[in-house]
């Protein structure tokens, strides 16, 4: 299957993060995580719950991109007006998101880069729901561009989501629900399974070497590579195409490369 794209491989890898999660809200923010959550529901984990991206719970994942307003088929209701009561603060959710930065503790940043809080060099979205998500329910991450600007040395510029940094933990606080699970990038799959939740590389995408991942990361990684990240099977590819009929996934990773790299030295 030489025509499988790297984005499709990432979707397949991301979908594994939701395997056997039970009756919780699977939220994928961005095209790859969102299709991944839908793929998980339509294959190995049908008990997952998810929204149409607005306010309704759907049992048939809503495809990406332009479609008719009526095309969603609500089976339940979960608006923002009760999202914290129902999904976040009860821990019944697993979100996969793309922060701007992440550090060796799994601390994430979506708020600002550089400068001061009063005058940031670059203002981004704000912390959104990251502080609540990370203290209350499982979280995973997808990064389409694995670089030291994303996987930063030291700590993130503004800690928007809780990680495993002992220095940030106020004594007496309850951190028992902090549960960072999977990181999928354009190079590899990682988890937090090292000593003190250190980040480990657990699989490399076809043709990627560990040293290359380490070079693209601002902190030291643990090599726990058990093999190559599996390619999606035919069923998965069919479902991915159905959930992304306009091929938005082709725009996620720069130049939309194939999952199987060209051998080094050969013509691209």
């Amino acid at each position, binding site marked *: 299957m030489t025509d499988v794209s790297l984005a499709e491989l990432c979707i397949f890898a991301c979908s594994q993060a939701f395997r056997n999660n039970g009756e919780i809200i699977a939220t994928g923010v961005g095209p790859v995580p969102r299709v991944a959550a839908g793929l998980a529901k339509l294959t190995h984990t049908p008990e997952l719950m998810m929204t149409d991206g607005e306010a*309704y719970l759907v049992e048939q994942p809503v495809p990406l991109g332009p479609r008719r307003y009526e095309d969603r088929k609500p089976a339940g209701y979960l608006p923002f007006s009760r999202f914290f009561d129902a999904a976040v603060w009860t821990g019944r959710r697993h979100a996969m998101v793309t922060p701007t930065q992440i550090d060796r503790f799994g601390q994430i940043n979506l708020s600002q880069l550089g400068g001061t809080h*009063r005058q940031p060099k670059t203002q981004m979205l704000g912390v959104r729901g990251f502080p609540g998500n990370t203290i209350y329910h499982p979280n995973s991450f997808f990064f389409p561009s694995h670089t030291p600007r994303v996987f930063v040395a030291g700590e993130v510029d503004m800690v928007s989501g809780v990680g495993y940094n002992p220095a940030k933990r106020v004594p007496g606080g309850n951190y028992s629900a902090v549960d960072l699970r999977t990181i999928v990038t354009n190079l590899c799959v990682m988890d937090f399974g090292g000593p003190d939740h250190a980040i480990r590389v657990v699989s490399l995408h076809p043709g990627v070497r560990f040293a290359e991942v380490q070079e693209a990361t601002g902190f030291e990684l643990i090599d726990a590579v058990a093999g190559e990240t599996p390619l999606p099977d035919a069923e998965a590819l069919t479902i991915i195409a159905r959930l992304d009929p306009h091929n938005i996934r082709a725009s996620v990773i720069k130049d939309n490369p194939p999952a199987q790299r060209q051998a080094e030295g050969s013509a691209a």
Partner: protein
Amino acid sequence: MTMLDKRMTPADIVGRLSDGMTLGIGGWGPRRKPMALVREILRSDLKDLTVVAYGGADVGMLCAAGKVKKLVFAFVSLDAIPLEPWFRKAREAGQIEVLELDEGMFQWGLKAAAFGLPFLPTRVGQGTDLAELGGLKTVQSPYDDGETLIAMPALKLDAALLHVNRSDWRGNIQAFGPDVYYDEWFARAAAKTYVSCEELVDRMEDHYPEQAQANIVERAFISGVTEITGGAHPSSMPPAYGWDMKAFKAYADAAKDPGDWAAVRDRFVGASEEDYLAGFGGKEAVAALPLPIF
């Protein structure tokens, strides 16, 4: 005696606000925003506001016009245009004070204010930079668990602005659409709440009694009402109309070129609401905007 006839003009409403007030604005990002009332503020001399909002272009415009002294926020976004460019400019110029909060903490603070409590305890914010940056203090559970929690201070509002689908002159409102976000809690957290509505009727029970469940907050919390059809434009107001992404895009582009609010203020605020809407095709064009797909 309470005035039961709460009809006002938009200018009356803004006339009841004053410099330095803490003002809550309902809606969420580019959805259900009382934009016509925000434009009325932009036509006034009001200044030094503390704005409390799940922010969209309301926050961007008020920042651009120099009306904001302090912003209480969890995000400012136009959804399809993720980063609100006029808000970014204000932040990167160091122009405003901020209290940055998690989305859930934010509504928790509105609820504390609604219930007259100094704070409500929460686990949210622990392990992040929010507490230190925002000066948020902790409390310890007096029970056996002894847990240390963040004391989310009440977000008391001097006034709140909402845009709803219907109201009568007594302030019996109805709000539709898939999600009404935290509008109810803005109203309960505020000393006074002023609503604009798509449709003003005389007596709700004579017109839409079968939809009374859409009365998301009781009229005791509503101090003034005004009819402004299309008053959420360019934000969405389901089921009446969707957001105007073309208008948002023009607004966002203007932050780069010319990048000067004074030069584009006429277009995005207008001398009057009629004048403003005419620039975007009038009420008919607004009513025809398709509902957004997520």
